């Protein structure tokens, strides 16, 4: 079983890294021929960085749109971020001081993450408009996060796993020195689902994470009168 999971994780990580880098390279290569920031937009690059940070950390636009979606969405994402950071302890030896510091918060974040997902799912089921636009994959995505969260919490609060051994396995993976994975159904479920998440990342709507940084509506400075903006294929029209 340890070998199986080792192979799974190597494969999932490869798919995640190569797939996501490929999508990012597509976005990078594709030109933006016209200036289309949603105005009012920042005039300078510094302003664009600030706007982007407000979007990434505070979900500014979503806040303007709908407080429920914003609240639940922000709760989910902020919790997920804390949970991910907390999990760094399984990949570092010695554990960094700040990672040790956030351990208790990360634990609660696991709970708020599940609550956030549940709330978002309720919205998807009970709000007529959101139900109309939902595809089966939208529901499955939430189910996936919910299952990852619940299986993780179960190992923490219900059936305690051998975290030392799990850490040994993860460090082993990173050093290409295979260590045994403790045999536990909860752990198998948790890790399998995480591997699934990694693998579908580059081919699903999870691409919204890198996508935001490449959105011309948000990442362009509002300076078209001051600086001529022209893409390669558009420039060729001028020599005709």
């Amino acid at each position, binding site marked *: 079983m340890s070998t199986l999971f080792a192979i799974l994780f190597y494969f999932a990580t490869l798919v995640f890294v190569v797939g996501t880098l490929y999508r990012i390279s*597509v*976005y990078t290569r*594709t*030109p*933006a*021929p*016209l*200036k*289309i920031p*949603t*105005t*009012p*937009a920042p005039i300078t690059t510094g*302003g664009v960085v600030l706007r982007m940070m407000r*979007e990434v950390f505070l*979900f500014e*636009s*979503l806040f*303007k*749109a*709908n407080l429920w*979606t914003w609240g639940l*969405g922000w709760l989910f994402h902020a919790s997920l971020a804390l949970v991910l950071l907390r999990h760094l302890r399984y990949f570092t030896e010695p554990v960094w001081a700040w990672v040790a510091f956030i351990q208790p918060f990360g634990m609660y974040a696991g709970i708020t993450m599940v609550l956030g997902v549940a709330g978002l799912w309720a*919205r*998807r089921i009970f*709000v*007529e*408009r*959101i139900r*109309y*636009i*939902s*595809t*089966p*994959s*939208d529901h499955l995505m939430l189910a996936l996060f919910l299952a990852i969260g619940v299986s993780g919490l179960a190992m923490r609060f219900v059936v305690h796993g051998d975290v030392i051994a799990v850490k040994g396995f993860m460090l082993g993976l990173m050093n290409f020195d295979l260590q045994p994975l403790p045999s536990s159904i909860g752990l198998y479920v948790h890790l399998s689902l995480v591997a699934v998440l990694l693998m*579908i990342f580059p*081919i*699903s*709507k999870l*691409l*919204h994470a890198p*996508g*935001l940084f*490449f*959105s*011309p*509506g*948000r990442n362009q400075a509002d300076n*078209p*009168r*001051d*600086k*001529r*903006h*022209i893409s390669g*294929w*558009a420039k060729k*029209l*001028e020599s005709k």
Partner: protein
Amino acid sequence: MSAKITAPAYRIIPIIPALKPGAMEGSGPYVANDKIQGALGFPGQLVDDWHDQAIAKMGELLGKYRSLAVYMDSCVHCGACSDKCHYFIGTQDPKNMPVARQDLMRSIYRRYFTLPGKIFPKLVGARDLTREVLDEWHNYFHQCSECRRCSVFCPYGIDTAEVTMAAREILDSIGYGQKYDNEIIGKVHKIGNNLGLPGPALKDTLEGLEEDVKEDTGIDVRFPVDVKGAEVLFITPSADFFAEPHIDSLIGYGKVFHATGTSWTLSSMSSEAANFGMFIGNYEQLRKVALRIRQAALELGVKRIVVGECGHAWRVAYSFWNTLTGVGDGADPDDQFAMMLQKQLDHRYKQPMHICEFTWDMIEQGALSFDKEANDKHIITFHDSCNVARGSRMGDYPGGQFDIPRNIVKSVANHFVEMDPSTTHERTFCCGGGGGLLTDDLMDLRVKGALPRMEALKRAADEHGVNFMACICAICKTQFSKVMPYYGFERNMVGGVHQLVSNAIKLGAK
């Protein structure tokens, strides 16, 4: 069709409407005939291998526009945009929710360009491109006015206008264009303006206008055409030359130029600010229409280019002209195409400049004086035009496009009231006729799409006695004067900012 068009009821509380699937299913615009299509170099009718050509075109656009590539991938169906579109609010058709409109194309994108869509189409909402899908596209991508209101609220900035433009571009490329837009673009190529008003007729109209103003004010306000060596080339929507209430703003521009002693000229060859090339999302058409302005500027040797009251035209001018034609600043020194024009222009001034920026500059410098009481019969509110609000700027700071027109109104009139802030500034609602939909065959849609703006106006009228809605867009002016009677308003309640300027300006005072 027009007999049964009625305005939807005002919502007592503006709650989000319930869905009425299929409400606007058969409400699309007329299809362009082969003559109209041919004039733009598009196939005359639906080509035989439309399926393969459409997919190929989509692939091409995905490679040419980062916006499309990113926007197709990034939507998470969060629903933030779902209640933001005026056409959804007015029609309740779920396919008029921005996300659902995008999904009409995203479903095809997933099927032909993504792995999950190729393997498990049902799972990810992917579907084959069929003839029914094409009809659906033609219908619903002509129920979007490309106003970008949804993009304000999207956490990833996904702009449905970009998707609509791409869809229309694909439809045109397989011979399934829209009559109204493509016919108008053909007229610009042939004659120089959307109306098909030839040079001599334009000159006649303007001479008549000079006589009218003389009769009215006793002063010789000129409306010059094709004057070589004039300082300012003025580009305005051709509706300003004869439509009501547009012409009253044209008189206002003329008076401002007169009072400030500015030498200016119109161009008979390039007598159109509007650029419907943007509406159909076709870069070549957009560019070709815009190049007439470059040509006029070079031929007339002007130092400045100023643009009249028109929403999408200002977006094209402000955001795209520098890219398309070199009207602007900051080209590379070895960029010969742009430098040729940029060397000629006077860069102490913004290039191009909006007429509101021009007038406000003059007011700030004390070059204009007004008799504000002349507008006392009006209690005025201001409708932010979508393309100005969310696709451009005026002045030196973000949001100047909101302040400058309001500053002008407050300088020329005593009574100004804002509408509900959830319907103004960046959150403004489209008039319901933008984006190439200002055609009689879409009148039902136009009336319904005006609902959110009419609701806000109604409240302002009931609470503050507002009786005049100023705006700075030719399409808004035409659309409102047409649909306002459906909502029980007088059609002359709408007018331009420079119409108010015209009422109050003191000529010969300084």
